[in-house]
């Protein structure tokens, strides 16, 4: 066996066996000569006769080689060697093809790897395509939510779902108070939660129904991560009692490693929701506690059908909502994937589209280059064919060349993709989920490589397949003319595609500039912000929260270089957490308005220094005074926009307003203390809306807010020292008060810029692809024009000999090129108008048919394309007629 393998290896290596065959044949010949001599011939005659009888040696040699098992490999190696030699002779062609493939494959792979996670990622749930998020939406909360009473009624009477389940609307923090204390994220879910999602614990079991009842046994499920970091993956953690928020709870299970909450929030410990239906229905002014609800559709039911079937239930429960705001509530059912990805989907599709356009341009380039090479090599093919190369050999040669090029391009592209992916990840906004886990997907590399091979083959094989006729040997070609016209169409398509790409990129770029340029209504420099969320266990009362933040603010005020410190519950330009509808605001001395809910009015709780810290001018009245902090009266500052809406032509200062009467009939009245200038408050892209600021006094009632938002405050510190130094100072002061608290520190500018992360991401990416596409298209155009000029050298020579001037030739070539460019631009303009409509929702402050953009793109493309033509055109005009005519 071993001997046989060794023998095969010897055959494969092959060199020695050729000599062996020669020796063997030589021996045969000698024997024949010997036999002839023995038969009585003279030695020279004997040899002559023997050689004649012997016949051609070369053919025997060849046949001996062909029967060898290594023959195919050897031929392949030979073909590859030949191909490589060809590439070395023609480095410009080779580099152009490989670079084109690299850009095409690299860009496609990198982007597809990113987009794949967004659009096509398999959610870690059983039959995830049947999971939907169900609930109400309203202008204050655009993500589906449910209220207790609604949920119980719907769950009892619904038909489209196999199961419905709920988690608490807001995921709270809880503290692990044993061993290594830590602040954890602790969602509360129903016992039906995991079964509905189709998840079983990695260890232990799900909650039992009796554990999901009020007063039931205190049990939790812990995440795989917590199990690993705090319990060393010890299976003994099951049934162990651990201390959370100072109370003992029993661990009944460990969640699977890949588990994630349907809303993608962190989850370290799952508690049973343990809702008491009767009390839950009465809470929240009789609406029931807020929840997030997910459901599993019955097989064959779509989200739209489910929504239609839920409509009667929705109509019924609507009557519980106060009449003033009823019309503001809508029913929404959407797939879990949509819920998770939000508006990232559109970005993903735009990227995918861009990258396909680039890939098409790249393929067109490869095709065009290979066709040009094929046309230039017709003569060579004819010669090889005349020398006895079989058609199979020529075809395999073409195949091999395409494969070698694709392989080189694929390797280069893979490297480029790795680099690009790093850049993408650095640019990517945190709001795109799972981007950090992206890696190059080999399937995608394979796809791009196959695509490039296919387009290489389609056009690389064409010249090899036609049997070269003897006529080719003369050097005149007829077929290349038809190829040239195909190539011209390819160039038109390339220009059209880059036109679309450039338009999309330019629109996004202008939109991004508008975003960056807008007036925020506040000053963002020299300002640091620190966001602190207090644990609900250690800071369970309003007094504790108030004391902590006031103590922290006092400490910070005496910091080096600090001029102002303010404490508020949120900061612009991001959307605040709270807010209400315009129709809910009651003005003392006026009847309740019945104008309907109206638009959203944002509100924030602020300390008196807030306006100074952000440099928002008070345009009317005094604003908040420090002595108001101890007052029993409630004070409010209105934004200019809100003041003008509520009190047109009146002085609002001193007027009294009530904000919460819809939910709390005995809600306090607020006195207007001033009017502040408008501030950008709907995110960077959102409309600037009306807003009011409540003074957070030194009274517990102003700190009573519950949940994560109630536990969180943002501290703004304006300091003359560098941000890094102040940042260290803030951190040390927080740690001095409570070392376990996490602090999120960023300059205000960073916070603002973070809001522009996603537009920046898509703009950079699309811009990069547009530039790539343009470069490729220009290479393509240059290649075609250079080829046409080379083909028509003789004709140009004749024209010049007959008296055409240089400028005539220049005009001839440029005119030809201009025709292609204009064709491409026109087709591209039409396509761009159609395509850019999709972008409308991504654009800010620029229409999808912005004429300036179209003009700029058209001009840019025409100029760049003409420059690309100028080089071959000039070389055409320099043709020496004598040399050209001698070519004949």
């Amino acid at each position: 066996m071993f001997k046989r393998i060794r023998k095969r290896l010897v055959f494969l290596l092959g060199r020695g066996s050729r000599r062996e065959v020669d020796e063997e044949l030589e021996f045969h010949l000698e024997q024949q000569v010997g036999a002839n001599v023995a038969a009585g011939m003279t030695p020279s005659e004997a040899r002559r006769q023997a050689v004649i009888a012997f016949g051609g040696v070369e053919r025997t040699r060849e046949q001996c080689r062909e029967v060898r098992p290594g023959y195919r490999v050897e031929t392949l190696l030979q073909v590859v060697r030949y191909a490589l030699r060809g590439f070395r002779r023609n480095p410009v062609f080779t580099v152009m093809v490989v670079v084109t493939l690299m850009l095409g494959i690299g860009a496609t792979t990198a982007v597809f790897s990113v987009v794949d996670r967004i659009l096509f990622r398999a959610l870690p749930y059983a039959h995830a395509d049947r999971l939907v998020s169900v609930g109400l939406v309203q202008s204050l909360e655009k993500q589906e939510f449910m209220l207790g009473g609604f949920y119980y009624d719907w769950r009892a009477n619904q038909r489209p779902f196999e199961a419905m389940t709920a988690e608490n609307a807001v995921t709270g923090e809880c503290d692990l108070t044993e061993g290594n204390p830590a602040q954890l994220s602790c969602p509360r879910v129903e016992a039906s939660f995991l079964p509905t999602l189709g998840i079983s614990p990695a260890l232990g079991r799900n909650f039992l129904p009796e554990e999901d009842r009020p007063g039931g046994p205190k049990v939790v499920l812990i995440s795989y991560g917590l199990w690993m970091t705090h319990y060393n993956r010890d299976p003994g953690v099951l049934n162990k009692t651990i201390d959370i928020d100072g109370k003992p709870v029993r661990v009944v299970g460990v969640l699977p490693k890949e588990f994630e909450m349907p809303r993608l929030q962190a989850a370290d410990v799952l508690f049973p929701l343990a809702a008491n239906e009767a009390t839950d229905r009465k809470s929240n002014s009789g609406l029931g506690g807020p929840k997030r609800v997910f459901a599993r559709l019955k097989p064959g039911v779509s989200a739209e059908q489910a929504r239609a079937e839920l409509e009667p239930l929705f109509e019924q429960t609507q009557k519980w909502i106060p009449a003033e705001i009823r019309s503001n509530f809508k029913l929404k059912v959407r797939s879990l994937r949509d819920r998770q990805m939000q508006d990232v989907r559109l970005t993903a599709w735009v990227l995918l589209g861009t990258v396909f356009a680039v890939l098409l341009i790249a393929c067109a380039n490869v095709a065009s280059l290979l066709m040009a090479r094929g046309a230039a090599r017709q003569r060579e093919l004819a010669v090889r064919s005349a020398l006895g190369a079989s058609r199979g050999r020529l075809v395999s040669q073409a195949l091999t060349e395409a494969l070698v090029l694709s392989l080189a391009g694929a390797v280069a592209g893979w490297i480029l993709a790795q680099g690009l992916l790093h850049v993408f990840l650095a640019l990517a906004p945190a709001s795109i989920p799972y981007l950090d886990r992206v890696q190059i997907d080999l399937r995608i590399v394979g796809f791009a490589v196959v695509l490039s091979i296919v387009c290489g083959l389609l056009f690389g094989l064409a010249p090899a397949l036609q049997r070269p006729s003897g006529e080719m040997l003369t050097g005149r070609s007829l077929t290349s003319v038809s190829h040239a016209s195909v190539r011209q169409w390819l160039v038109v398509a390339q220009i059209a595609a880059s036109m679309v790409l450039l338009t999309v990129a330019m629109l996004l770029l202008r939109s991004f500039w508008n975003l960056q340029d807008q007036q925020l209504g506040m000053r963002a420099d020299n300002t640091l912000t620190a966001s602190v969320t207090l644990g609900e266990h250690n800071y369970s009362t309003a007094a504790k929260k108030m004391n902590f933040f006031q103590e922290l603010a006092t400490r910070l005020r005496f910091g080096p270089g600090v001029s102002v410190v303010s404490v508020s519950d949120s900061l612009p330009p991001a959307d605040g957490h709270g807010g209400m509808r315009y129709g809910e605001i009651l003005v003392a001395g006026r009847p309740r308005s019945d104008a309907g809910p109206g638009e959203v009015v944002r509100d924030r709780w602020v300390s008196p220094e807030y306006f100074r810290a952000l440099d928002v001018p008070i345009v009317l009245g005094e604003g908040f005074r420090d002595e108001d902090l101890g007052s029993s009266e409630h004070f409010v500052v209105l934004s200019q926009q809100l003041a003008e809406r509520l009190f047109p032509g009146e002085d609002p200062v001193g007027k009294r307003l009530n904000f919460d009467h819809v939910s709390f009939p005995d809600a306090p009245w607020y006195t207007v203390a001033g009017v502040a200038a408008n501030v950008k408050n709907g995110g960077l892209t959102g409309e600037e809306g009306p807003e009011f600021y409540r003074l957070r006094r030194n009274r517990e009632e102003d700190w009573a807010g519950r949940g994560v938002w109630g536990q969180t405050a943002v501290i703004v510190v304006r300091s003359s020292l560098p941000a890094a130094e102040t940042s260290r100072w803030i951190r040390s002061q927080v740690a001095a008060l409570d070392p376990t608290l996490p602090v999120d520190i960023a300059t205000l500018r960073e916070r603002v810029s973070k809001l522009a992360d996603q537009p920046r991401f898509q703009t950079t990416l699309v811009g990069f692809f547009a530039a790539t596409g343009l470069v490729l298209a220009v290479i393509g155009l240059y290649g075609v024009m250079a080829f046409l000029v080379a083909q028509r050298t003789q004709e140009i020579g004749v024209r010049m000999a007959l008296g055409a001037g240089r400028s005539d030739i220049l005009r001839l070539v440029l005119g030809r090129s201009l025709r292609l460019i204009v064709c491409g631009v026109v087709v591209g303009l039409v396509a761009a108008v159609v395509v850019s409509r999709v972008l409308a929702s991504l654009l800010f402050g620029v229409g999808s048919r912005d004429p300036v953009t179209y003009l700029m793109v058209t001009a840019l493309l025409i100029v760049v394309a003409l420059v690309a033509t100028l080089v071959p055109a000039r070389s055409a005009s320099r043709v020496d007629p004598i040399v050209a005519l001698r070519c004949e």
Partner: protein
Amino acid sequence: MPSTSDLLQGTLDLLILRTLALESMHGWGIAQRIQQASKDALQIGQGSLYPALHRLEYKGWISADWGASENNRKAKFYSLTATGKAQLKAELKDWDRLTTAIGLVLKQV
């Protein structure tokens, strides 16, 4: 039925295997032996002999070794392997069946 060329090729293989069944031999010897045995009716040219020998060698039916010829020159000697012997037996049987069958047909018609 194999096609004509297959039959011819197969026949040459059979002749070579049969010749080598007696003793190991170099290519020239094989050709001479076949020529003598067939009373000069079958003359095997080097152009078909050596590719056939190489093919049989790669199939593992015969093996080759360098040795000294009767006039003391370096020559490649071929000999039958175990598989080659089995193959020869099988092919002889096939050949017998075929010739008998053809003979029967020819006699009857």
